[in-house]
């Protein structure tokens, strides 16, 4: 009689505790991420079972990531770091937090989270995925030397026998914004050439030359006002604009190079992890 009573209680508890999980999962599968995140939060509100709580934490994190709410996911996971879950679960929460921090573009915070790993998880070294995040975050911050060191250590640990192409032999050479400005200041269009945009450089040269030409011709024909107010003004306006444009183009070019390099590093490291 007692056994039957206990079994009934256990089965009722299991049904009750998994009902919310099932609903949340089905909402997630249906792509209703906002409603699913509420359903997962409800599990956390109602349930004290650590397994159910962990499933809900990761479920809600998935929803927030799907909605692109990385900052909320970051804060949400931070709040669960202090709970007495098993260390493997806390490690997963820690990794998810670092991932959301990276996706949210807070690269300095990613490094801090990676540094916290060893003393929060019993002196263990960070998981491979976390190391990858660290390398990518260092790349994003332009700290190539540290990124390269971390990359070489990681590759050596994962594939000591295999020879992979060393991506850090070709670190993107970023162009100097000051140099572009300086070039455009003294040679019209040179800054744009330096930024790798010859079309814009030629346009800039042509328009500034036209301004000077108009000023000279007008001056020769004794149209002094026109020479100053049209020729010189045209040249001056496009000259100053050219300097600013060169700066913007160099920044765009640098960003593009960094993204391409990061993409290559990411692809190589992820393929290494999947092997």
């Amino acid at each position, binding site marked *: 009689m007692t056994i039957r009573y206990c079994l009934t209680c256990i089965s009722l508890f299991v049904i009750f505790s998994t009902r919310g999980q099932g609903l949340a999962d089905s909402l997630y599968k249906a792509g209703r991420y*906002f409603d699913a995140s*509420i359903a997962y939060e409800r599990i956390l*509100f*109602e349930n004290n079972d650590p397994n159910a709580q962990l499933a809900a934490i990761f479920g809600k994190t998935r929803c927030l990531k799907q909605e692109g709410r990385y900052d909320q996911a970051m804060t949400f996971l931070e709040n669960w770091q202090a709970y007495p879950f098993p260390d493997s679960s806390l490690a997963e929460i820690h990794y998810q937090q670092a991932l959301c921090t990276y996706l949210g573009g807070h690269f300095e915070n990613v490094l801090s989270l990676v540094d916290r790993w060893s003393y929060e998880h019993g002196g263990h070294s960070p998981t491979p995925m976390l190391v990858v995040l660290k390398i990518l975050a260092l790349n994003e911050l332009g700290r190539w030397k540290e990124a390269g060191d971390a990359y070489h250590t990681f590759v050596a640990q994962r594939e000591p026998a295999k020879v992979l192409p060393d991506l850090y032999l070709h670190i993107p050479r970023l162009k100097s914004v000051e140099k572009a400005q300086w070039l455009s200041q003294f040679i019209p269009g040179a800054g744009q050439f330096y930024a790798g945009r010859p079309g814009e450089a030629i346009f800039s040269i042509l328009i500034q030359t036209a301004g000077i030409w108009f000023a000279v011709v007008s001056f020769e024909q004794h149209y002094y006002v*026109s020479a100053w*107010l049209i020729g010189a003004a045209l040249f001056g306006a496009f000259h100053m604009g050219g300097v600013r444009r060169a700066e913007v183009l160099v920044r765009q070019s640098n960003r593009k190079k960094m993204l391409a390099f990061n993409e290559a590093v990411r692809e190589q490291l992820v393929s290494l992890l999947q092997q």
Partner: protein
Amino acid sequence: MKRVCLWLLMFLAFHGARAQQFEFSKELRFAQYLQDKDAAPEAIRVLEQVDTLTLSRAQKDSLFYMLGWAAYTIRRLDKSIGSLLKVSPDFSKYDKSRMFAAYCQAFQGRMDSASDGLRELVLSDSIMRELRSLQLAGIALLKRDYKAFLPQQQQFTYSSYIFEKEERRMQLYYDKLKGFKHKSPALAGIYSALVPGLGKWYAGKKKQGIAAFLPIISLAALTYEAYRKDGVKSARFIGFGSLFTIFYIGDIWGSTLSVKIRRNEFYKEYDNKILFDMHIPLRNFFN
């Protein structure tokens, strides 16, 4: 047999009501939990899904109040007003609901509804009455109804630390708004006709005035040069002359408009200050 059925029915009805009450209070606690976690949109979704048909009056009041408050925290003012105004006078936070609904209405520019709502309140507490006067004074200033401001201002005692500073500032806003001199758009146009950009300077937009003066004077110089060297019928004179005319007339028209723009900017600045000083005492008093 009949008696047993009756008892069973009563038992089920009693427990059904208890279960429903339990479910509702659980939903309310869950919504509050979400609200405490800065998840107001989620709290709103939870509260909106509650079936109001089965709720008692007191439960509905709690629901509408919480819904209104959650919507207010994320500035969904229409929803907030709609929910806060549904709260019944029996509810403990009725005065707070009405005051905040009125503030949200004032924020949306619905001044008459806001002041009507505040006047309908029956307030026994003298500080609450003074707070209402402060709100009504603010609304009067937002409406530029200076006559309506004075009776409310007479209720100010400047004795409550919660809104003493705001009361003094309302008085200051009254003086500033009342003393604001309305400049003439026609005069601004005439000034700009005489000296390009001077109308904008007169309207209070000095930098715009200088920015208008320089190109017009440059075009005038180019037109004059073309006239002197090539004559009236030259393409150069006609081209620069046309450009000068367009810029010159445009500046006169712009100067007349700039008077209105400056006036609106002035009012907008004070509206923001007034709304801010209406809001802070509400938050301090009710929190």
